[in-house]
């Protein structure tokens, strides 16, 4: 990404823009993001010399431990798409195979760690998760498929990470996990894994959830950053196309925390949302901030009916 020697005038020319700088170094930097620009121009169908490559979702069935996952399903009412598609359908054959085998899936190492944390006594109350909730396979079955939920006490939606922190502080007398602490990702994955295969849905009738959904929707379509991209620019308008060497999926959240091969570890949803916003060259909202919680509510709704795949494997 450093000072590229690619002729910037040629690169910019493809984009059909008239602004051409002779400052090679300055433009050289942005040329490496040429693919991004190309796509955003593609949306507006402005004089494209190269047709964007298509990377349509594959026709394949995901079966994990004998359980068939719902990777495509009819969209809920008011959804821009007819069909919602899991990100699994947009990945390569090798990556898909990695998720389909729960032994090979490297994220299962995190789930195993989460299972240990579940049993570990921490905090002044001398309790572990298991002290109150018992066997997670029973008590947490299906729970993770319906977050974020309305929290009447704090009067905002809570996701699994926040719920765990509340429980740690209130009931265990333990410290809340810092954002993206290894233990937070492991325990969140472990709890959500108990809902593997369950269709994802959230209850918008509770509290002010509808208002948060509205806010999330507004943010989803708000262009942001120097690249002036909204979530919808890529994940709605360009779904199925390539962004540089990568397939653009619908940006579904049913597999989080997910193992990203690129990062060689579990990645939380708010980490990924922040990463996406950073890539538009905008300022990143803090994890669990109102903005990101609103987006989480909205994008979770956008995946209504998809199976929980936590922990999924993505590129």
């Amino acid at each position, binding site marked *: 990404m450093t000072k590229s020697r690619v002729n910037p005038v040629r690169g910019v020319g493809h984009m059909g823009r008239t602004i051409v700088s002779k400052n090679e170094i300055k433009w050289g930097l942005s040329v490496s993001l040429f693919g991004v620009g190309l796509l955003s121009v593609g949306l507006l169908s402005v004089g494209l010399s190269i047709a964007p490559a298509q990377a349509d979702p594959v026709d394949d069935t995901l079966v994990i431990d004998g359980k068939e996952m719902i990777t495509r399903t009819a969209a809920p009412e008011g959804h821009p798409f007819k069909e919602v598609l899991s990100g699994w359908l947009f990945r390569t054959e090798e990556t898909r195979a990695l998720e389909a085998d729960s*032994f*090979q899936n490297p994220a*299962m*190492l995190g789930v*195993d*760690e989460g299972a240990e944390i579940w049993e570990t006594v921490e905090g002044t109350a001398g309790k572990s998760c298991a002290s109150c909730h018992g066997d997670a396979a029973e008590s947490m079955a299906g729970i993770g498929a319906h977050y974020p939920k309305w929290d009447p006490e704090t009067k905002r939606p809570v996701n699994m990470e926040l719920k765990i922190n509340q429980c740690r502080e209130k009931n265990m007398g333990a410290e809340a996990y810092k954002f993206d602490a*290894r233990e937070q990702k492991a325990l969140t994955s472990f709890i959500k894994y108990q809902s593997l295969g369950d269709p994802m849905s959230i209850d918008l009738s509770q509290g002010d959830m509808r208002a948060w959904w509205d806010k999330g929707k507004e943010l989803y379509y708000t262009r942001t950053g120097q690249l002036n991209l909204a979530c919808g620019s890529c994940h709605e308008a360009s779904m199925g196309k390539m962004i540089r060497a990568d397939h653009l999926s619908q940006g579904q959240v049913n597999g989080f925390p997910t193992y990203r091969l690129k990062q*060689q*570890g579990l990645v939380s949803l708010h980490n990924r949302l922040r990463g996406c916003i950073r890539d538009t060259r905008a300022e990143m909202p803090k994890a669990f901030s109102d903005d990101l919680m609103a987006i989480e509510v909205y994008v979770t709704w956008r995946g209504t009916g998809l199976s929980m795949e936590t922990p999924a494997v993505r590129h």
Partner: protein
Amino acid sequence: MANVKPRVKVPKTASKGEIITLKTLISHEMESGQRKDKEGKPIPRQILHTFTCAFNGQDVFSCDMEPSISANPYLEFDAKVEESGTFVFTWLDDDGSTYTAESKVAVS
């Protein structure tokens, strides 16, 4: 290194002379030695450099691993089993640690 956990998958039973598939996965950073920390200092290499698998004391499979191998290395290989016994899997770490896992197979 904290949190190094091996996982192995071996069929519990097999018939005599059968070729079985063994799968292993271990949590490890596989720090390549090429990266730098926030202050610009190189992060020293720490990888699992050797893997061996023995069946009833006899080597079945072994390999050297190099710094470009991803975190949490996964290895899969086959072995022909003639008798019941125990597979012992061993990983050697740059820091001198040894991680092992065992799994029994009953051959009929």
